[in-house]
C-alpha cells in the first residue's frame, strides 16, 4: 500500500516514468508479436521445404517463378534415381495477375495458386495432409474445377463450400476450406495441376505462343517439383545425385541446406526486430533508474527515520526495489495492453488480405509482463542498495 502511495506522491513524475516503460513494452509487444508471426510463417515454410527435395527450373527465382518450366521428361527421369520415392509436379502462380501499373505492397504472402497433380502419390514428408475447416482437399477423384482454399481467401472473398470462385476468368467450385495455419497455406488456392498449367501459360505470352504452335506440351509446364526419398535413404545423398545428373537444367534445394538457410535468415530477422524493441526498453529502464535515484534522495529523511526505528537495510532495499518493480509492472501492463490492441486492430484490417503480421500468443504476453517487472527490479536494485546503505546519522541530521 505504502508503495502505491509513494508512487502517487509525485504523480506527474511517476506518470512520465511509467510512460517510458509503456513505450518500451509497447514496442516489445508489437515487435515480439511480429517476430512470432514471422517465425511461425518461417517454421511453416521450413517444415515444408525440409519435408521434400525442392526442384525448380534453372535460372528461376524458386517459388512462384513463371520464367522457366520443368519438362515432365526430366521429372520422370528423376523419379528413377536410386533412393527417390515420389516426384510431384507443382505449378504455382499468383491468384491475381500482377498489375505492374498499379503494384500493391503485400506484407504477408500474396494469395497464390498451388496446383498439384492430384493423381500422383507425392506427399510432402512433413506435411502430408492439411487439416480442413470444412469440406475436403481435391483428390484423385476430383474434377479439375474443384478447389480448396485457405482461410484468408475464404474470409476475404466470403466463400464457403460449394460456392463458385472466379480465378483469372475461370469458374472454380470450392470443395474445401483449409483450417487456419497462420502460415502460407492460409492464402493458397489448392487446385488440380492442369488448370493451373493453363493459367500459367495464358499469363506468359512467350509460353502462350510456344503452346499454340505445339512446341510446348501442357505436361511440361511445371514451375517446380517436390521429390521425396525412400525410407532409409539419405536426403542429402539423393539431392546430390539429382544435382549431379540434372544440375545443368534444374536447381536442387536439399532439405538440410534449406533448413539451415531459413534458420540463418530467421535468426537475423529476429535479432533485428527484438534488438530494436530492447533498445526502447533500455531507455525505459533508465527512466526508472533516474526516478528511483531522485525519489530516494528526496526521501533520505524517511529512510533515516525508518532505519532509526529499526528497519533493516535489506528491508529498505526490498521496499525500494519493489517500488521500481511495480512501476515496471504497471508500465508493462499498460504497454502490453496497448501493444495487443494495436496488433489486433492492424491484424483485423489486414486479415482479409492474408497479411496478418502479428501473432499474439498468451505465453509471450505473460513473458512480457514478467519481463517488465524484472526490468523494474533491475532498474531499482542499485538505487535501492544505495538507499539501504544510507548513513543513519547523516540522514537523521537532516531531521
Amino acid at each position, binding site marked *: 500500500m505504502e508503495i502505491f502511495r509513494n508512487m502517487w506522491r509525485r504523480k506527474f513524475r511517476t506518470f512520465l516514468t511509467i510512460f517510458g516503460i509503456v513505450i518500451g513494452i509497447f514496442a516489445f509487444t508489437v515487435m515480439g508479436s511480429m517476430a512470432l508471426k514471422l517465425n511461425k510463417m518461417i517454421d511453416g515454410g521450413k517444415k515444408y521445404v525440409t519435408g521434400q527435395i525442392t526442384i525448380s527450373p534453372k535460372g528461376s527465382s524458386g517459388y512462384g517463378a513463371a520464367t522457366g518450366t520443368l519438362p515432365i521428361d526430366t521429372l520422370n527421369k528423376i523419379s528413377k534415381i536410386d533412393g527417390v520415392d515420389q516426384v510431384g509436379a507443382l505449378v504455382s502462380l499468383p491468384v491475381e495477375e500482377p498489375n505492374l501499373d498499379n503494384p500493391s505492397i503485400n506484407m504477408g504472402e500474396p494469395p497464390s495458386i498451388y496446383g498439384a497433380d492430384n493423381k500422383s502419390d507425392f506427399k510432402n514428408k512433413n506435411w502430408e495432409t492439411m487439416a480442413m475447416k470444412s469440406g475436403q482437399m481435391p483428390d484423385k477423384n476430383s474434377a479439375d474445377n474443384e478447389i480448396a482454399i485457405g482461410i484468408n481467401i475464404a474470409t476475404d472473398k466470403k466463400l464457403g463450400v460449394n460456392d463458385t470462385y472466379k480465378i483469372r476468368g475461370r469458374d472454380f467450385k470450392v470443395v474445401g476450406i483449409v483450417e487456419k495455419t497462420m502460415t502460407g497455406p492460409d492464402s493458397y488456392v489448392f487446385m488440380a495441376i492442369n488448370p493451373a498449367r493453363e493459367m500459367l501459360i495464358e499469363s506468359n505470352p512467350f509460353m502462350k505462343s510456344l503452346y499454340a504452335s505445339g512446341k510446348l506440351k501442357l505436361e511440361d509446364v511445371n514451375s517446380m517439383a517436390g521429390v521425396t526419398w525412400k525410407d532409409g535413404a539419405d536426403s542429402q545423398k539423393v539431392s546430390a545425385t539429382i544435382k549431379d545428373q540434372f544440375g545443368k537444367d534444374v536447381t536442387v534445394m536439399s532439405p538440410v541446406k534449406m533448413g539451415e538457410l531459413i534458420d540463418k535468415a530467421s535468426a537475423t530477422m529476429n535479432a533485428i526486430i527484438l534488438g530494436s524493441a530492447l533498445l526502447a526498453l533500455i531507455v525505459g529502464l533508465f527512466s526508472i533508474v533516474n526516478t528511483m535515484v531522485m525519489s530516494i534522495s528526496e526521501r533520505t529523511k*524517511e529512510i533515516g527515520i525508518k532505519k532509526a526505528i529499526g*528497519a533493516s537495510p535489506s528491508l529498505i532495499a526490498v521496499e525500494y526495489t519493489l517500488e521500481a518493480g511495480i512501476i515496471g509492472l504497471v508500465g508493462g501492463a499498460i504497454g502490453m495492453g496497448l501493444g495487443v490492441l494495436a496488433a489486433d486492430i492492424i491484424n483485423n484490417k489486414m486479415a482479409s488480405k492474408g497479411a496478418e503480421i502479428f501473432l499474439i500468443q498468451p505465453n509471450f504476453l505473460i513473458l512480457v509482463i514478467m519481463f517488465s517487472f524484472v526490468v523494474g527490479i533491475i532498474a531499482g536494485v542499485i538505487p535501492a542498495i544505495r538507499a539501504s546503505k544510507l548513513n*543513519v546519522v547523516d540522514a537523521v541530521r537532516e531531521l
Partner: protein
Amino acid sequence: MEDKKIVVKATGLKKTYKMSKHNIVQALCGVDIEVKKGDFSAIIGPSGCGKSTLMHILGLLDRPDEGTLEIDGVDMTKLKEKQAYKMRAKKIGFIFQGFNLIPTLTAMENVLLAGKYGGMKIAARKERAEELLKLLGLEERTNHKPNELSGGQQQRVAIARALMNDPAIILADEPTGELDSKTSLEIMDILKKLNREENMTFLIVTHNMEVANDCKKIIRLKDGRNA
C-alpha cells in the same frame, strides 16, 4: 532505590568527527552516563556540547571511537552493524524534535511500522497499536495522515511509535522543540505519566530548562564532557 536495574551504562565515550583534513571536531571526550529503569533524566548543555552525538551513540545510530556501552545488560561496543538495527527496534524508542512520522502513512500505520521492525506478529501489532493510540487519546485520529494532525497530535503518534516494542529506554531529542508552550506541557505531562504509571525509562535531550526542571535527574554536558 539502589536495586533498580541499570538500563544504560556508558563509560569513557569518545567520538571524533573529521570534517575535513584540518578540521577535526572532538564531539565527545570521555562521557560517563548511567540510566536506571524508571529514570526520567534530562541531558542538557549548550549548543555543540555533544548532546546529539551522545544521543546518536546511545541510540545505536553511531559508534563511539572509545569507551563502553551497555544497554539492558548487553554489551553494545562489540555489536555488529547487522545486529544494531535489531537492538534499535526492540530496545530503543526514539522521539524526535520534528516528530518525523512517515508522511504517506496514517497514524495507525506509522505506529504499526515500529511493530513490524520489532518482529511483532500482525495481530499482536494491531492490538498493541490500537491500545497505545487510545492511551494517548488518538483513537479518533488513527486513520489520519500526519499532515492532517496538529503538532501535539503528531508528537503523540511518535510517542506511541516509540512505545510500540516496549523498549528498555526512550530517547527523546528536544521532544517539545517544535511545539507551543501549552502543547509542550501536554507532551511533558504524557511522558511523565508514562514514567510514573508504566515505569517507562526516559532520557530527554533538551536545552529548554523548563523541560529539564520537569525531569527527576539532570545530566549536564559541556565541551564533550560531563560537567
